[in-house]
């Protein structure tokens, strides 16, 4: 059942989050010490980095992974798990 079908008579001023997935706008990039860099020439498009990203900061496109640096917290699981070394790390601010 959708929201408009239910007459909601809640308490006034109750905090309701109306936009699903709104945290995607929040910048967590400042948490990073290192950032992942993708090298498409070495990539075999195995999807491992995309599946193992705990922050859904890697989006999958037909051309391979697309890193969203707003959400990436720099845990570097992608670089650690990449079987071909197509994901490397770079110091932030260097």
């Amino acid at each position, binding site marked *: 059942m959708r929201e408009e079908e239910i007459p909601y008579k809640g308490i006034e001023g109750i905090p309701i989050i109306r936009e699903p997935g709104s945290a995607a706008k929040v910048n*967590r990039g400042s948490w990073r010490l290192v950032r992942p860099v993708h090298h498409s020439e070495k990539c075999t498009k195995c*999807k491992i980095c995309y599946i193992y990203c705990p922050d859904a900061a890697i989006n999958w496109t037909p051309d391979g992974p697309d890193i969203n640096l707003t959400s990436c917290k720099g845990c570097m699981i992608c670089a650690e798990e990449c079987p071909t070394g197509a994901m490397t790390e770079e110091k932030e601010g260097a």
Partner: protein
Amino acid sequence: MQEFKSLKDIPEQDYFTGGSSACAGCGPSLGLKLALKVLGPETIIINSAGCMTLLPLYPNTPLKASWIHNAIENAASTAAGARHGLDMMGNGDMNVVVYAGDGATYDIGFASLSAAAAKNERIIYICYNNQSYGNTGFQWSTATPYGSETKTTPRGKENPTGTTIVNKDMLKIMGAHRVYAATASLAYPVDFLNKLSRAKERDGFSYIELLGACTAGWNYDPRLTIKISKLAVRCGMWPLYEIEHGMLTLNKDFSELKPIDEFLKMQGRYRALPPDGVERLQALINEHWAELKEYNKQRYV
């Protein structure tokens, strides 16, 4: 039933976005991201107080599915209530999923979990097990394995072992409720998603326990989350198996287990565990593994 054969089969839709306040490299948060790929947006997630409670922080949420947060004691009873409510409103297709930590599952919320399982309510209960009360600073819970150091079981001259109590065998307890019970690991996402997809189709209670590696509590470099999860399975610390109607199936069978040392060395919580402690832990693991091998494809509970 949706079946996945390899990583390439895993759906590309995400109902979980970044920007949450979980730690970098958080295991449980990855578990929820993977689970929502199978469960989809028509899901109500019920969470009892724990690390994952901090995902939706007003005014933002990383979730594209509904979320109920409630007290640590009653996640399973809230889920049962939500299930009955949805069924009465004709929304029987919606999934009701509990995502609760091990403190809420093993200790505080155990009564309501046991009741919901005994009544065979049609809900999926996922326990993300980080083997401690991680949210409050890594205190001992009954899921903490032997030899692990926690804030409430520190190592010292009197007690060099840390945790001296052996953790509960929760899968056996849940298996004895005659429900579907399974363990899962983040390093084996295909296995995890297949178990979830099976649980989704079942007309009854399903219990899935996921080892959620905790970078802050277990004290390791965040990049090793998957490596550690994989090692836990390979050395028998976290065997992958399922129990249905009391029958045990070992999902990942190895002819020989890796020694525990490599797994222990990677984590700060086991640093300075004396050799006799390592020996005892290895003996406990071997005993459990031998039991699983013996009862594989047979009646277990």
